[in-house]
């Protein structure tokens, strides 16, 4: 995802002189390094200083540029939170905040590097748009949209490098603010976003093994949420499952439950989120997700499916 973002940004940046990158002491990967070489003035490194990264991005946007503020996800939102809120959201400026390693991607680095509530926090901010692609193809489509949009600030939550392609079977293209079906099935619908989509597909295969056809839907735009599309899912399916790599408070699960109540949905609805806890576990991304109960095996077990 990170590399596809970089390749796409480089290509767009060559054509649009308004596009700039403001980073806070993160080594530019792949094509961003190439962008820096070719356009040194449009690449700013503020050093270990995230408040000025966001503040500068705001000022640059006010004067007609289209900056992307880019660093590790936790440091894009948590340290400079008030700058994100006041400078970007309150002034409603078209700045893209690129959070690398959303969720528990940096699985061995401890909770200081875990953006485990980033989506909840970003969704709570007025004017903020929140996008979490699930694979490199969605990352590319989202990056293209971010580079052209004039709506306001965006939190673009990326994983890292090497995610598998999961959207090859999608019947509709990526569209901002619209959910899309990545896998067909009529009995169960699994809603997910971000890198944990991989586990969502594994759970869908468990359903299949148990004789139930499971659809998988990418809710890549968390804000504005596609309420109509989700209400349709809640109407159409007897069982809906949410799997997300985010704290339980304020993420997709809570919003889907609220929507189910508002629309008097009759489906069975089960949500799987990160725990509301800092878990002191160091291992692979999959291993720490499993500690939170988010391995495909643990999810299937709780759903009463054999694996």
């Amino acid at each position, binding site marked *: 995802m990170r590399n596809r973002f970089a390749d796409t940004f480089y290509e767009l940046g060559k054509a649009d002189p308004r596009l*700039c990158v403001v980073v806070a002491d993160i080594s530019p990967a792949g094509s961003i390094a190439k962008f820096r070489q070719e356009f040194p*003035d*449009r690449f*700013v490194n*503020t*050093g270990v*200083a995230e*408040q*000025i990264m*966001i*503040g*500068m*991005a*705001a*000022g*640059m*946007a*006010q*004067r*007609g*540029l289209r*900056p992307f503020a880019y660093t590790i996800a936790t440091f894009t939102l948590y340290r400079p939170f*008030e*700058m994100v809120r*006041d*400078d970007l959201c*309150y*002034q409603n400026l078209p700045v893209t905040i690129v959070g690398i390693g959303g969720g528990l991607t940096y699985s061995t680095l401890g909770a200081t590097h875990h953006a485990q509530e980033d989506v909840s926090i970003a969704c709570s901010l007025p004017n903020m748009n929140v996008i979490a692609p699930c694979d490199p193809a969605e990352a590319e489509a989202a990056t293209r949209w971010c580079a052209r949009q004039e709506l306001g600030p965006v939190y673009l939550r990326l994983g890292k490098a090497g995610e598998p392609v999961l959207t090859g079977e999608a019947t509709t293209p990526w569209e901002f603010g619209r959910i899309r079906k990545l896998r067909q099935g009529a009995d169960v619908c699994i809603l997910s976003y971000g890198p944990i989509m991989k586990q969502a597909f594994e759970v869908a295969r468990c359903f299949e093994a148990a004789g139930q056809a499971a659809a998988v839907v990418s809710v890549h735009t968390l804000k504005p949420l596609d309420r109509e599309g989700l209400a349709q899912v809640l109407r159409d399916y007897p069982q809906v499952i949410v799997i997300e790599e985010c704290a339980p408070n304020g993420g997709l699960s809570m919003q889907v439950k609220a929507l189910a109540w508002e629309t008097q949905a009759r489906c069975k609805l089960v949500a799987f989120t990160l725990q509301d806890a800092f878990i002191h576990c160091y291992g692979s991304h999959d291993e720490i997700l499993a500690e939170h109960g988010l391995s495909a095996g643990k999810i299937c077990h709780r759903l009463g499916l054999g694996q």
Partner: protein
Amino acid sequence: MVKPQALRNSFDAAAARRRCRHYRRRILDISQQVTALHVAPAFSCTEITDAIYHGLMRREQGVDHDVFLMSKGHGCMIQYVILEELGVLSREDLDRYCQPDGRLGAHPDYETPGVAASTGSLGHGLGIATGQAYAEKLKKTDVMIYCVLSDGEFQEGSTWEAMMMAANLKLDNLVAFMDYNDFGGLERMSDGHKAFYPLVEKAQAFGWEAVEVDGHDGEAIFNAVTSRKRATPLIVVCRTVKGKGVSYMENVPIWHYRSPNKDEYQQGLKELAAE
């Protein structure tokens, strides 16, 4: 395209004093409409803001060519009355200050005419100004960014992040003005925060050109900017008196936020007339 009016090469100090007296009286007038108003913080940066608008900023066909950013958002009354005088804001706008049918609040809102950024929370303005100044460099314009900060804002770490970055980027199109009135909300900063000083040397150590002037002397402020070396950003440390111009307000913390009652209002007007 009309070329922006050239930077003035002189500053009429007597006219500036007349303007500032008028601004302070106008702010006192507005203070009678509402129970609370940041009078004293506006009075401490009256001459600074006047010197920027009437000495330094260029305008073309009534539109600002340069940018003014009130980082100490609670000082916005002085900006509002100047914008009213310039015709950017209307008398009705100021009459409806802090009213539900108006558009002016106690802190500036971005996209209000003449307002370059939403401020109010301290320590945001210089970072935004740094981004604005850098954008103008990238666009290869000659636009200047003028940013007024309170001395208290220099206790925010974010301000020093901006100080470092603006100097790194050699933003000679950025001029910051520190309204050095020595008052925080709680106490005199020189009493409570001795390590805050010296100020000019600190700014210089961060790579800025820095000078200290009497912040109620518009001509001194103007000269400090027009005579700068122009290789780095410039900060003008302006020694000021909080509540300047009205004796009972000067250096008395309660006037950070209070509006004068009728008697106090009359006394204030009298003092400003006699000045």
